[in-house]
């Protein structure tokens, strides 16, 4: 367990098997996520992509039928260790969901909610976080004059960028995105994709997407999931041009999915 590659990896997944009520949804998964990389996860419906993402920040814990074996290491420390601070873990691994869900408050309140929970009270610091995260999410220009208006007044695409900004306000180390553009217009999608590319200067991104074109546009590496198994992972260029596995090829070229 001391190969150099393993020390470099930000997140290491080892022999991860996940069951819901005894039924396997992920089988024997091994995957590394490196600092400052964008990893896309593609695959047909119910291939375990979302389940995998929700294992990383332990959101699956909310389902009482969930059980797992194997390990998930963040900076070498198992996230399922009993002494792990769950709230702290979720701050380090921020998540953006498929459906934008602003909390029923103002834009500003949505953005400072997480930092306040983490104990940041200083007004200037909070304001700075709000501005910086909105800028990173390409939403600052549209919202800077109406930070104290209800977040629900924003359009769907703006709401999703707000959800991205809300996570960024916590300065996460890993960003988990669960089909973040599935319901968005092309312009919002492009803005989010641009934001993601810039963000990897400071963090790692795992992007689950149903849109193979998005994976090829945005990611450095791509992993292909099928029926709860990782079929293959490699540089995005290679996965999309000459994958090692014929099922990958069939999926990418649209023969099933």
């Amino acid at each position, binding site marked *: 367990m001391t190969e150099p590659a393993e020390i470099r990896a930000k997140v290491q997944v080892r022999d991860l098997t996940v069951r819901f009520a005894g039924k396997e949804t992920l089988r024997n998964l091994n995957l590394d996520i490196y600092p400052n990389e964008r990893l896309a996860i593609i695959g047909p419906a119910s291939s375990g992509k979302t389940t995998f993402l929700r294992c990383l920040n332990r959101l699956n814990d909310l389902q009482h039928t969930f059980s797992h074996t194997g390990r998930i290491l963040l900076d070498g420390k198992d996230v399922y260790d009993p002494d792990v601070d769950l709230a702290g873990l979720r701050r380090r691994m921020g998540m953006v969901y498929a*459906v934008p869900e602003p*909390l029923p408050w103002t834009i500003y309140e949505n953005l400072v*909610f997480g930092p306040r929970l983490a104990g940041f009270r200083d007004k200037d610091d909070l304001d700075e976080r709000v501005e910086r995260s909105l800028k990173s999410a390409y939403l600052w220009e549209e919202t800077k004059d109406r930070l104290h208006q209800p977040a629900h007044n924003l359009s769907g695409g703006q709401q999703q960028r707000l959800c991205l900004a809300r996570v960024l306000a916590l300065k996460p180390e890993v960003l988990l995105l669960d089909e973040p553009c599935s319901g968005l217009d092309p312009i919002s999608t492009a803005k989010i994709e641009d934001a993601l590319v810039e963000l990897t200067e400071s963090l790692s991104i795992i992007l689950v997407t149903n849109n193979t074109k998005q994976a090829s546009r945005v990611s450095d590496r791509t992993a292909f999931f099928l029926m709860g198994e990782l079929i293959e992972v490699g540089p995005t260029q290679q996965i999309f041009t000459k994958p090692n596995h014929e099922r990958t090829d069939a999926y990418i070229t649209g023969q099933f999915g």
Partner: protein
Amino acid sequence: MRRLSPRTAQQIVVSIMWMLAAATVGTLVFIIAFILFHGLPHVTWEFLTQSPVSMGRKGGIFPMIVGTAMVSGLAVIIAAPIGVATAVYLTEYTRESRITAVIRFGADCLAGIPSIIFGLFGFVFFTITLGMGLSVLSGALTLALMVLPTIVRTSEEAIRAVPYAYREVSYGLGSTRWQMVTRVVLQSAMPGIFTGIVLSLGRSISETAAVMLTAGSALGLPSSLFDSSRTLALHFYILSREGVSMSNAYATASVLIISILVLNVFAYWLMHKLVRKPR
């Protein structure tokens, strides 16, 4: 037999439903109008601010207004935290099991018990066994037990109406369960919870049987929680039942009805004001 055309059937059904709805509203309006017609002429400033004279034949109902406010206010102050806490436990801190089913079943059974039984229980338990006597406190505790199920169930509904996604979002942003419950769920559910509490307050104010056996029927102004006090509803009952003064009975009933109407309207107004419309 010839079949009705769907169009005719539709018209008949609609008119029947219209009549039934009109009957419901009409009954309510008739009752209120009847009581106000007989009572309002006797509601004067003196009536509201003075103590009753010769058993209520003359004078006012000021002690009853104070007693009602104390008994039902205290009842809700006691019942609301317990009820909301129970609802939070049922929805957020435990998953469906035999225990939650039993708690819920218990609450539903409590809701179905006639108020005179609560009165009897309060009389035996609070008034005699715990030695509180006929007092504001005995009455309030009894009413608290009576409205508890309402508060539990309405709060539960309100909490369940908060989108599940809010909880995931809150967890995802690093909140503990307690922070999630207090800052997100309860905040979003507050209008619904509040409405349930206000409706319970209305029920406490109009309750008669349970307070008769526990708060007593003293005519004086209660000066502490251990004083006996007569509530408006009970005063109205005694005035009419014992033929003391029908005009003062109607006047008391008018005051009672108006305060409950105002409370309900206020509750609905608040609900519409505070509940965010779906996007």
